[in-house]
């Protein structure tokens, strides 16, 4: 039986998501069965980018309006500087041909990494499975 790895992604910061995907892809490359569990702000990583998110109640609507999410929108945990730092980090990453969070996510999918969304966080934020990229 293949060795297993489970990563718990608790943060919606780009740097942390990159590290998590990096480990997941590495594990999948050596034949491990990898699953990633996304919870709380970590759910932002696998949120679909397009369309408005439906949810019940004014507070949830506000939360989901403010907290759009999606791999493309993740901010840096440090030096984000209203997106300027992120833009510069993106440049540096491109410079060394390092894939973006979205590309890493696709690569993880293709390598057979399983994505799991925390149902408790989903319920609290009033979001259904359709709001996320899962496999």
């Amino acid at each position, binding site marked *: 039986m293949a060795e297993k790895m489970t990563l718990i992604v608790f943060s919606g910061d780009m740097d942390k998501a990159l590290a998590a995907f*990096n480990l997941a*892809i*590495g594990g*999948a*490359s*050596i*034949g*491990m069965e990898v699953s990633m569990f996304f919870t709380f702000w970590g759910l932002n990583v696998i949120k679909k980018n397009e369309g408005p998110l439906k949810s019940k109640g004014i507070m949830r609507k506000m939360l989901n309006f403010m907290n759009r999410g999606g791999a493309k929108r993740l901010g840096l945990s440090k030096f984000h500087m209203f997106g300027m730092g992120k833009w510069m980090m993106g440049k540096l990453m491109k410079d*060394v*041909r*390092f*894939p973006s969070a979205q590309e890493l996510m696709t*690569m993880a999918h293709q*390598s057979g990494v399983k994505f799991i969304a925390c149902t408790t966080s989903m319920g609290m934020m009033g979001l259904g499975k359709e709001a996320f990229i899962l496999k």
Partner: protein
Amino acid sequence: MKADATLDCVGLYCPMPIHQTANKMKELKTGQVLEVLASDEGIKEDAPAWCRATGNEFVGMEEKGGEIKVYIKKTK
């Protein structure tokens, strides 16, 4: 060293070289040798580790002016 296939990972960083190696090895037949070209030092540790984990044979490594060549034989 003679190889049946070559994979160019020069300029790529972790996890790309090992990810691409894993994908490329799927295309090879048992007994064939893959040559991986890389510039990231990480490959020196990653390639033997990958071989140990997947049960393939690590044949050898050459280093010349910052370019690292790794040879992996498919045994499975």
